[in-house]
């Protein structure tokens, strides 16, 4: 069984599908970070924003990312942009909420100390608030990644072509067990890899500096 697995897979389709999926998820993920992190910080700091957009964000949290797919298809049509939209929306909210939480719960003494050092506006955000909430940011990043990946998979499974999800469905339609399993293994592998290599290393750095996770 393993042999057919290997054989079926080695003809390059698996690799191609992986690359397609990875490209989509990475692009969507980084866009969601680029929007979510500043948004989270602003929501935490500006009362006005919190009262207006804040509830909207919380509302979106309740919406499973796959629910964005019909809207995306209507808006963007049957292409990559639709799936990208779904990935972004899936990840964005969790990043924003985690970041907002982290910044809100910062010890006020950081800001006060920074103020007495003459720190205002942009430097206050980039040099103090964001580094100070790095542990929370990391949590948000991990969550965002998980949701981005799920959004991508549900999108690819249901509809869009060419990615791993599609390959998975194809395997089902062709009654090809080895293909199905192969795809699943790849997905698991990617998950482990990102967790250990990427997030693991980042968390290591944070622990080194902050002295956390010692006990």
């Amino acid at each position, binding site marked *: 069984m393993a042999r057919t697995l290997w054989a079926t897979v080695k003809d390059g389709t698996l690799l191609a599908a992986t690359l397609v999926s990875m490209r989509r998820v990475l692009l969507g993920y980084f866009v969601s970070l680029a929007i979510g992190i500043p948004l989270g910080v602003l929501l935490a700091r500006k009362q006005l924003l919190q009262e207006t957009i804040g509830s909207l964000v919380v509302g979106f949290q309740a919406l499973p990312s796959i629910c964005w797919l019909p809207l995306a298809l209507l808006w963007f049509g049957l292409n990559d942009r639709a799936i990208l939209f779904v990935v972004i929306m899936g990840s964005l909210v969790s990043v924003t909420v985690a970041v907002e939480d982290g910044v809100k719960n910062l*010890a006020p*003494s*950081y800001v*006060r*100390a*920074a*103020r*007495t*050092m*003459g*720190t205002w506006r942009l*430097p206050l955000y980039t*040099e*103090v608030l964001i*580094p*100070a909430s*790095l542990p929370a940011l990391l949590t948000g990043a991990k969550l965002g990644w998980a949701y981005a990946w799920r959004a991508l998979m549900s999108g690819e499974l249901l509809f869009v072509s060419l990615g791993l999800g599609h390959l998975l469905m194809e395997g089902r339609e062709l009654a090809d067990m080895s293909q199905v399993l192969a795809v699943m293994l790849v997905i698991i592998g990617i998950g482990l890899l990102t967790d250990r290599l990427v997030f693991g290393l980042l968390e290591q750095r944070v622990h*080194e*500096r*902050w*002295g956390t996770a*010692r006990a």
Partner: protein
Amino acid sequence: MAILSVRGVTKRFQGRNGGVKALEDIWLDVDQSEFLILVGPSGCGKSTLLNIIARLEFQDEGEVLMNGQRVVWPGRDRTMVFQDGALFPWLTVQKNVEFGLKRMGVKPRERAERALHYLKLVRLSKFAGSYLHELSGGMRQRVAIARALAVEPQVLLMDEPFSALDALTREDLYEELQDIWQRLGTTVVFVTHNVREAITLGDRVVLLSGRPGRIQEIFPVDILRPRHIDDVDVARMAQQISHAMKSGHARMNEEEYDEDEERTEEIDLLRLLNSSVGHHR
């Protein structure tokens, strides 16, 4: 020449039981290079006054002048050392000290030089590359002092900086702080609830009474420096100020002398002798 002037400052807090005056009509002048102490029981408004000088809080009435000019915002001319240090754990010790300098636009090489200079002053230059969690509480406060001094402020504000430290570390820091102060000539405004600490360090001790927060009395301290917390003169004056505090219907914790039983007895004996025989210099 007064470098810092507090004029008629009043601060009110609105509680659920009506308003309370945290500070009422405070008038205070601080001279250049003076080491001024604000002392009083908890809740007397001393930290509030310091925050108002730092512009971390704002008064309801009155004004704060620095060199004759009204101060509006927090700034590097009045840096503050906080009780919990408020250092940045994501930066090394050196980068922490450099923080204010970086905000001033000082170039990296000069920043590093100045940071190391001040770290040497607090005797921590060996730890320049360490992270905060590798340091003890006393060391961290010294870093906080170095950070506040590195931008060469006109006034150094200190809000109970040693209250969270053990007695032995505190004594080391009293010596170090007096030494640094005498070398740099910076004006210092220091808040504490510990009367002996106040007398050990200050040129003048301003006693505040609470609710409403008013200046009860100002005590000039003429004792020769360097002073130590267990000097007899310090202890005697501490008694005087503590009495004033109690007579002002204020409660207060005098420092607990928990380490050396013998020394306490010795001081008690000396007090007894002094009070019965009379003062002599």
